[in-house]
């Protein structure tokens, strides 16, 4: 019995030891915490709707697509591209300021601690396979992300700004966060079944690219961060001046190279533009030369520092420090800075004893005491930080999931294909009347297009809608309803379009809240996707509800169908999926 008990005890001891050795590191906990905090809108995963509240004014620090249903902030890279694409109307200073602030505070510590995309790659790298080690070739390859930054993030959006078509090229063609966090997560929700109809070549390309990046992450460390991510490229510029991060204390470093050997990123030395400040090199440094910036406040000063708080420079390695002159107060002072320029380094040494026969010394100055937080203070600080962080996370989850008032109204009746068009009234930007009322359109096809000024596919399809409006002027009415923009901007935007869109056959209008407590977009089944087209036949019955871009041929086909609605049994009711 005793033997069984002792064997059981040692077994559980081994289990406990195993858990202790494999417990998540502090860095992993912070990464998980940051991923959860920036994706606190958990209910979005169940509803399939993205968060639309006030915190979307702010950017999260890492690469986390705004279209992810759970994310509560905007993506800095996407916001930067959109800001550049709109820089003809507004100087994109807000995004530049945000990036500068994040860079100054954290730089690439964001990559190492706060980015969900980096966390995903870290977790995939843990799968046990042979790994492709870094080399001089991967170091050269790591400069490719600067090419992507210049070409896809800066040049292409600016180029298409001159064509009045916003194009966030990196988001559209490359970004795996948008594909995984946005497209895939939205598609997994049954509420977004209509989204499947939009999928085509672009989605296929992005999905394949996502799969390749995830596959590469299993075999090499953070391939996206090292070779592709333009956000990491931007933050890398700030690594030297950032407030947080790792640094090497030159006086302790013996240049053994173990930090570079241990690091899985393509660094040349710790703290350069490739360093993600993960801190894993700190434990391998034999001389403890690598420390966190600002961590000296947790290091206990030695006895000399705590007493007289002087730093006495050495003139050379052999001669003792010059005898200090005694002052009236009895404190010891140090040689002047001008002398220190010729001196190799400074070190703390014994305060020289006061001697009455000491020759007159050079001009002296006092050095202030170093700030130090003792062990008790550190413990208190840790407890306070953990409590505040936990409160913040719990508070965020409770707020976003139970008290958020920005969620779209889902209680009203939503019109679908086959229903009669509910009446609505909107203010117009163009056309003869100041208002447009749906019930005034009788015996004509009504084409309603929902768009907004920074939506690329919206702006690509609208010229085709304008052409269709001109061709079917007598038999169809086209109204393009804008969402979420101040009135003046839309008017100026429309006037600035080629051919002045205020003067063509489409009635441009602004969406607003209707009597049923919903906007027109919501009333006609719109969720988060733009553009959206609703076509109503001559009998006032909705025949088409489509999310995504619609080309001229498809539009024309729907218009002709709506012009000739057959009997009820023969009606070809079209709904996008």
């Amino acid at each position, binding site marked *: 019995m005793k033997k069984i008990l002792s064997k059981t005890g040692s077994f559980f001891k081994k289990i406990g030891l195993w858990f202790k050795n494999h417990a998540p590191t502090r860095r992993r906990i912070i990464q998980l915490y940051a991923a959860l905090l920036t994706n606190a809108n958990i209910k979005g995963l169940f509803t399939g709707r993205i968060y639309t509240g006030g915190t979307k004014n702010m950017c999260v620090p890492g690469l986390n697509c705004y279209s992810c249903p759970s994310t509560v902030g905007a993506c800095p890279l996407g916001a930067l591209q959109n800001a550049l694409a709109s820089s003809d109307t507004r100087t994109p200073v807000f995004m530049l300021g945000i990036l500068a602030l994040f860079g100054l505070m954290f730089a690439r510590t964001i990559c190492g601690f706060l980015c969900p995309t980096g966390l995903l790659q870290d977790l995939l790298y843990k799968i046990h396979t042979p790994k492709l080690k870094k080399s001089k070739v991967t170091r050269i390859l790591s400069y490719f992300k600067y090419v992507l930054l210049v070409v896809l993030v800066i040049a292409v959006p600016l180029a298409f700004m001159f064509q009045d078509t916003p194009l966030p090229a990196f988001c559209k063609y490359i970004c795996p966060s948008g594909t995984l966090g946005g497209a895939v997560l939205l598609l997994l929700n049954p509420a977004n079944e209509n989204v499947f109809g939009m999928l085509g070549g672009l989605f296929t390309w992005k999905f394949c690219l996502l799969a390749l990046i995830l596959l590469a992450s299993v075999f090499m460390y953070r391939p996206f961060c090292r070779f592709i991510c333009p956000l990491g490229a931007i933050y890398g510029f700030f690594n030297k001046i950032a407030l947080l991060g790792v640094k090497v204390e030159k006086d302790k470093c013996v240049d053994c190279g173990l930090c570079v050997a241990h690091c899985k990123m393509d660094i040349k030395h710790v703290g350069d533009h490739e360093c993600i400040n993960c801190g894993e090199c700190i434990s391998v440094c034999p001389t403890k030369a690598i420390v966190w910036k600002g961590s000296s406040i947790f290091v206990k000063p030695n006895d000399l520092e705590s007493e007289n708080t002087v730093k006495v420079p050495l003139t050379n390695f052999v001669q003792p420090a010059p005898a200090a002159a005694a002052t009236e107060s009895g404190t010891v002072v140090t040689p002047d800075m001008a002398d220190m320029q010729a001196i190799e380094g400074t070190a703390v040494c014994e305060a020289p004893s006061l001697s009455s026969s000491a020759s007159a010394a050079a001009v002296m100055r006092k050095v202030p005491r170093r700030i130090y937080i003792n062990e008790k203070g550190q413990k208190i600080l840790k407890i306070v930080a953990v409590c505040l962080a936990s409160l913040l996370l719990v508070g965020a989850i409770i707020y976003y999931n139970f008290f958020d008032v920005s969620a779209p109204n889902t209680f009203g009746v939503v019109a679908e294909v086959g229903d009669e068009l509910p009446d609505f009234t909107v203010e117009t930007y163009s056309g003869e009347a100041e208002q447009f009322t749906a019930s005034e359109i009788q015996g004509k096809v009504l084409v309603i297009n929902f768009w907004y000024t920074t939506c690329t596919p919206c702006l690509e399809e609208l010229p085709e809608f304008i052409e269709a409006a001109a061709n079917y002027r007598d038999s169809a009415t086209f109204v393009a309803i804008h969402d979420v923009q101040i009135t003046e901007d839309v008017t100026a935007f429309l006037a600035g379009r080629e051919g002045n869109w205020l003067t063509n056959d489409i009635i441009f209008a602004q969406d607003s809240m209707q009597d049923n407590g919903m906007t027109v977009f919501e009333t006609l089944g719109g969720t988060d*996707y733009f553009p959206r087209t609703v076509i109503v036949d001559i009998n006032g019955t909705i025949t088409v509800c489509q999310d995504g871009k619609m080309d001229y041929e498809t539009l024309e086909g729907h218009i002709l169908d709506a012009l000739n609605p057959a009997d009820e049994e023969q009606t070809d009711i079209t709904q996008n999926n």
Partner: protein
Amino acid sequence: MTPEVRRRLHFWYGIFMSVLTAVVAILFISQAADIYYSGHEFTRELVAERCAAIAAPFWIWIAAIIIGGAVLSIYPLEKKKLKRLPDARGDVNRLTRLTAADKSEDSEFFELANQVHSENKRTRIIWYACLLICAVCAGIILGFAFNFEAYPSDPNEAVLRLVAVVMPCCAAAFIICCGVTIYDAVSAKKILPKAKRMLALGGRAPKENSNQNTAQRVLSSPLTLLVARVVVFALAVAFIIWGVLNGSMYDVFAKAIKICTECIGLG
């Protein structure tokens, strides 16, 4: 379990996971490509059907990760001792810096010094040539990317044209850099024994000259760091306030609360 058996377990598990991971990834990619190229429309039912077809290898992969990960963590391998990464060029530079330079009477030392110096000079010229080629490639890329008038109106066409210019330039620069890196490493390995011999003959320099010139001193001083931080902080705050006032913060919000379908690859 003996270390040899553990080593074999880790090795074969690694091979198995590599193959299985690659197979699962290829299956997902091939299914997506097949749906697109077969001309079928993406529908929920079709995607579910295709996912069901590859569900078995996917779940086997998940199970292998969990079980294998648990087993390997119970029987871990010994950690390899860390060694400095081989860097012949760095070693040559360091040895050259440490060597005393005043041994002009020793003919062997003089000859070695000449050889090392001429090899270094040759390598430096090759690096400058590489830099020049990279600059030319960068110039071509920038010139093409920022030639806004030449962009076609179709975004796909524009990006494809960019790819057709940017990728060859990047490839050329990459190949040149790799070639020069290899040459540098080979050359450094050749002269490393000579540098060691020089140090043996000439002895160590009395004091490593660590005096920086004024520019280096200014750039590495704490005051410069403080000034840079203050300037960046001031600019950041000013830009943010300006952005709130001029409405560019609202642009961030307006974009982030509606899904532009093609912007996230739904197209």
